[in-house]
């Protein structure tokens, strides 16, 4: 055995940066941060989510799509024209990077939902309409996959090391006020472009390090409410869980967190009755949405970010603040490489969320 070649699997890496004032900055910082944790990924997946990157199209849904071939593209575009007013459809600009091989066709569209169609359907509101269109394309059109569908935000991902993916998508040329990134060490899904993180739905994006032991419990619950888990990966249930709790059930994020990573019963019993009763009821009613197993996640949305660990912190997560910036990452070094002297650095406890919200909506 040659010791030099021995590889120790170390899971994935995640990183996130936000500017609370909504000031935009290029993708260089996040690429640098995630690149530092190169050893935590294995070149089979990397990706980024960025908010605030399409200010000129801020009122349109920005769909990013992977196509395996021209037929999938034609079929999808036909569907899009039927269901939306397509303001712009174009190839996402990329640059040649030696290590990035066999990319699919990568396109983006800026869309306005057809309001007549919404009125005629039994769907309430634009978001639900877009949600159902995304589910339809991803499950019904062979070879087409929507990997980003929010407004003024976008995901960029693929098979490769994250820093190479960032270079490939020319992220240095975009400016956003929130950036998240992921380096992947896949163990449970084949390394395909759609399987890389972040996963997104509407405004949500998630990067995730870990494995969800409760996957099938979560999935089978969510599928009762219109979600279709088509990606052969456990991460998508995280985003659907938050989408269901926040968008469909109308809970604030603090409550959604308490459902996804609730306190132990023994902790609840020690709390003052008023708070305990709330937590008891939430755990009872939404028990199928407890996300079990080791995880650290960064959830992105246009209003801010949420970083969260599983209840017993089986994955690393560090947070830091510096002036208007909030940083979260798998390792402290990934923060210090771009912010050498943060004001405050801490390791959040299991189940204890780190939340950062924009002070003014951009």
């Amino acid at each position: 055995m040659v010791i030099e070649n021995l590889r120790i699997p170390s899971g994935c890496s995640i990183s996130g940066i936000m500017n609370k004032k909504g000031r935009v900055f290029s993708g260089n910082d996040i690429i640098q941060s995630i690149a530092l944790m190169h050893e935590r990924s294995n070149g089979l997946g990397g990706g980024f989510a960025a908010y605030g990157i399409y200010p000129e199209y801020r009122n349109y849904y920005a769909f990013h799509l992977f196509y395996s071939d021209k037929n999938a593209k034609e079929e999808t575009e036909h569907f899009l024209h039927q269901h939306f007013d397509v303001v712009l459809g174009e190839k996402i600009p990329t640059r040649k990077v030696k290590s990035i091989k066999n990319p699919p066709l990568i396109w983006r569209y800026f869309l306005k939902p057809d309001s007549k169609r919404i009125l005629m359907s039994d769907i309430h509101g634009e978001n639900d309409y877009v949600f159902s269109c995304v589910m339809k394309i991803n499950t019904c059109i062979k070879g087409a996959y929507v990997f980003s569908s929010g407004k003024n935000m976008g995901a960029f991902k693929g098979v490769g090391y994250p820093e190479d993916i960032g270079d490939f998508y020319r992220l240095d040329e975009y400016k956003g006020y929130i950036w998240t990134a992921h380096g992947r060490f896949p163990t449970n899904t084949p390394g395909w472009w759609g399987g890389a993180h972040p996963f997104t739905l509407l405004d949500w994006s998630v990067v995730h390090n870990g494995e969800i032991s409760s996957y099938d419990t979560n999935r089978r619950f969510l599928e009762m409410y219109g979600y279709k888990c088509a990606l052969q990966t456990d991460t998508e249930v995280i985003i659907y869980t938050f989408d269901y709790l926040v968008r469909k059930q109308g809970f604030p994020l603090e409550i959604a967190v308490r459902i996804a990573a609730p306190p132990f019963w023994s902790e609840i019993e020690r709390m003052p009755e008023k708070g305990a009763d709330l937590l008891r009821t939430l755990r009872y009613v939404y028990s199928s949405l407890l996300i079990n197993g080791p995880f650290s996640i960064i959830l992105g949305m246009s209003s801010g970010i949420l970083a969260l660990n599983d209840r017993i912190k089986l994955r690393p997560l560090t947070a830091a603040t510096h002036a208007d910036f909030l940083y979260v990452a798998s390792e402290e070094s990934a923060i210090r490489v771009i912010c050498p002297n943060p004001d405050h650095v801490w390791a959040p406890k299991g189940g204890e969320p780190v939340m950062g919200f924009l002070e003014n909506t951009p």
Partner: protein
Amino acid sequence: MALSLKMPEFLIKRQADTCSKCLLCVKQCANKVHYYDEKKDSVLSVDTNCVGCHRCAAVCPTRSIYILRYPLEFRRNAYWTEEAITSIYKQAESGGILLAGMGSDRDYPIYWDKMLINASQVTNPSIDPLREPMELKTFLGRRPKTVVVEEKEIKGEIPPKLELEVPIMFAAMSFGAISLNAVKSLAKAAEKEGTYFNTGEGGLHRDLYRYGNNTIVQVASGRFGVHPEYLNAGAAVEIKIGQGAKPGIGGHLPGEKVGEEVSKTRMIPLGSDAISPAPHHDIYSIEDLRQLIFSLKEAMDYKKPVGVKIAAVHNIAAIASGIARAGADFIVIDGFRGGTGAAPKRTRDNVGIPIELALAAVDSRLRDESIRNEVSLVVSGGIRNSADVVKAIALGADAVYIGTAALIALGCHMCQKCYTGKCNWGIATQDPQLTKRLDPEMGAERAANLIRAWKHEIKDMLGGMGINAVESLRGNRLMLRGIGLTDRELKILGIKAAGE
């Protein structure tokens, strides 16, 4: 008298050199197997009477009694088996229905044993329950579709629910079918372990009202012992439509078993037969069931959950869905291995379907209809060990009931003669000479031990899967793999094959 063709099932062998002639076996056997022959000065046996309950062997101080299968070879015949032939002898002699106790003992597939449980390796750390919290707390009830939170408080009412420290309860077994000491043992054990026992259809004896917080009271077609105080004494009510051992037929407690206490508890005359009709005479349709559910809820001021128990039959998924929509807070499905004090043997052995398949079908159906979260699912009928419990929950159950396993913990030896009322272990009998053999304190200890032992095992298996709360196992079918199953069976169970 004509020659009887009934032959013994067991052969008693006594070690003459070690037998001390203490005659304990003679005193202990209610079936009158053993007797003392003065002339020969030795203890002898009538093999034909032996039911194979092992009481004599267990009490024999010198271990001198051996109980063997009676060596009676029938000519080999794959079709006309020994069971087929001897059953005809019995019916030719009696002209009656064949009776049997406990669940079906036939060689049908056991799906529990064709499912394997997952564990974590490397990518997902397994969790050690001795070091980390491991939660088994389970609730049964109707979950609301949504919860409104204002100012950190819940707005509106959350329907009543049961809280279990462990997802295992003691199944419905009536006072009458089993002894008061047996019921007491289970009641005490339920209290100790933070779970529930079920009265069965025999009412609630006065001595048991103090265990009300751990009691589920049953309302069955005979309505024995049902009155407002009874309904309100328990923590929940269960309407019994059917049971796995005898779907579609009623029950019959012979008058000999209806002594003073049973008579009072059931509110029927002393010594009269207690007949439970096959259907409830006020339930001839699903809308009638809905009325009974809401009558009971009214009677309890909507403060306690109301469940419905049904036997696992062919169309179980649609029936369960109807029951959920009729307003039940929890549904109990009892599989064809479910035990009973007495059932017609042909019904017991041929009617109904395995609980594993029924559970999978019901859970899937309720999910297809998006109502699974609104009703709790309890399964019973042949849960033998903690692995069965884990598999049931992974298939989609919230909790399980154990009946047979609980009685075995109390000393039952599965002789299947419950209907004779001569249970030598003091369980399925009302004979005071026999019932006093079961000390409720000791029985409670043993039943509680069983629950605790299973609890440890469940925690170990959960931790192995990288799960630290039992609700994350519920319906988590990816944690199961099938072995030796057909594609069709895998599809019904909703699981992948081992290796996939």
